[in-house]
């Protein structure tokens, strides 16, 4: 069946614009807009206006504790934030957590994906087990980890025979936070990698085996290169998520012991200190950082992604 493909329909539409839309094309347009409208509206209410509003607020001096002392200050809030070492420290914290967790998740995710893909029995069990961390409420998981590592109530100290007070020191707090994050989100990563596995044609691996390649060689030279697009997608999404980490840190340390990160900073400024102006500036900066990450990824590896994705509709 040729014809009536989206591409042809698009071309029809363009032609018609010159002479005036045909009734069919017009009604198709209208229907399309109408069907999308509700979803788009909902998405915009919560994002378009708040973003615009946030940007506007970020350029004001607006502290809810002194509501009368409002005023437009241009980029002052931004220079205040960027000039504040707190911001930079938090940015570094965030980056550290981000890089370390994603790295661990990549390796662990691979292993899990491998098990899900090739297990010779119990696949349903494995899949269910792996999805539990995905489904669990993040704060619930964070509590579990917090209690486990608590010197008084937890079992870890007993297990490792140590007296470590995990949440009073910076490095140990980091460790637990990263462990909790990794535990919770690796499943998602492993699912994306699992999808990537299906991209590797069995024949290619068999051929490599017949050619005499060892398991690790096969992995490095055949499987991983063929999975690259899926790996990139997985890493991109997880990186952006990791940058925005909030729940676990909030529950475990509330940002103390030098584990404060940018999201916590934003929250504190906005909700705890009620400084809408500064807090909005922090928020906007966080958004900009995420955009930069996405940009770097897409530019750096973008050609691969679109190649592999093939035809978009």
């Amino acid at each position, binding site marked *: 069946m040729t014809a009536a493909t989206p591409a042809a329909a698009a071309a029809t539409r363009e032609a018609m614009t010159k002479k005036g839309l045909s009734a069919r094309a017009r009604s198709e347009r209208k229907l399309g807009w109408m069907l999308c409208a509700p979803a788009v509206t909902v998405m915009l209410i919560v*994002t378009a206006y708040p973003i615009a509003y946030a940007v506007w607020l970020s350029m004001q001096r607006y502290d809810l504790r002194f509501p009368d002392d409002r005023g437009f200050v241009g980029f002052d809030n931004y220079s205040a934030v960027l000039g504040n070492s707190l911001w930079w420290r938090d940015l570094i914290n965030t980056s550290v957590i981000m890089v370390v967790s994603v790295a661990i998740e990549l390796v662990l995710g691979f292993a899990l994906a491998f098990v899900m893909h*090739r297990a010779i029995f119990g696949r349903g069990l494995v899949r269910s087990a*792996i999805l539990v961390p995905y489904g669990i409420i993040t704060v619930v998981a964070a509590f579990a980890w917090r209690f486990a590592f608590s010197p008084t109530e937890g079992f870890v100290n007993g297990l490792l025979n140590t007296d470590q007070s995990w949440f009073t020191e910076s490095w140990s707090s980091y460790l637990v936070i990263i462990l909790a994050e990794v535990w919770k989100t690796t499943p998602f990563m492993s699912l994306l990698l699992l999808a990537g596995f299906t991209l590797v044609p069995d024949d290619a691996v068999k051929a490599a085996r017949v050619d005499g390649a060892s398991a690790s060689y096969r992995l490095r030279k055949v499987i991983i290169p063929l999975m690259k697009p*899926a790996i990139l997608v997985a890493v991109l999404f997880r990186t952006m998520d990791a940058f925005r980490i909030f729940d676990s840190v909030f529950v475990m340390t509330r940002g103390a012991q030098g584990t404060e990160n940018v999201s916590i900073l934003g929250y504190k400024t906005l909700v705890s200190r009620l400084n809408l102006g500064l*807090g909005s500036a922090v928020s906007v900066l966080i958004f900009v950082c995420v955009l930069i990450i996405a940009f770097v990824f897409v530019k750096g590896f973008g050609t691969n992604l679109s190649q592999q994705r093939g035809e978009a509709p």
Partner: protein
Amino acid sequence: MAAPGSKVTGKDRVFWGVGIFMVVAYALIPVLWLVSLSLTPADELGGGGFWPDNPTLENYTGSETGVFQDDQFPAALKNSLGIALIATVLAVILATFAAYAIVRLDFPGKNLVMAGALAIAMFPQVSIIGPLFNMWRDLKLFDTWPGLIIPYMTFTLPLAIWTLSAFFREIPWDLDKAARIDGATPFQAFRKVIAPLAAPGMFTSAILVFIFAWNDFLFATSLTSTNRARTVPAAITFFTGSSQFTFPTGQIAAASVVVTIPIIVMVLIFQRRIVSGLTSGAVKG
């Protein structure tokens, strides 16, 4: 199946058995830990072992300490359930319409919608907490069910639309055409032919949306202040202990277990759907 082209040996079985055990252990140890905590009586906390010596249900049903006796927790449960269900139903409906339009129809702005949805999925939610807080206060949506339902829908619509598009794309275009030639209006074609075939996709999206809504903490804490709308994740962090000096570990653990059981059950029953929903989009783009 083992590596392609090889036979399954006894050694393989042992290898996989161990592997599977390790995976399951990895996934479930924190959960078991919570269960254990929830069964630990208050005076045993601080013991340092994994399992309590005298397991008890006092954290669940005890008159002073049980979460079900508390006024916060049952209210929070109700809120979570109601809000998550409503958000799920609405999000799936809206996403179905949008995904159908995107895959089947042609109209200007189509790509913008997809790109925009993607952008929203990547958006740092913390960035809009402030303005949303203000907006909701002005619109009297603060501390209400709709006040949470709407942002939940916003952030789950991208994933739902993405998943549903992948499913719709699998349905042959010819079926639409055949239905229209057979005499169906576009809406009839959708209702009688496409929707039944897309049902699995809608179901999968529903599960993914529900998990998000059930899970959310940020909006729940920032946009609520009382039991009226506070959901479980937020409520847990506000638990007070039986006295000013004890931290309500047991109660928090009990609440956590109660709130995790439905998830585990859901995952057990629907694991196949969830995996296919999350991976189909990735593979087919």
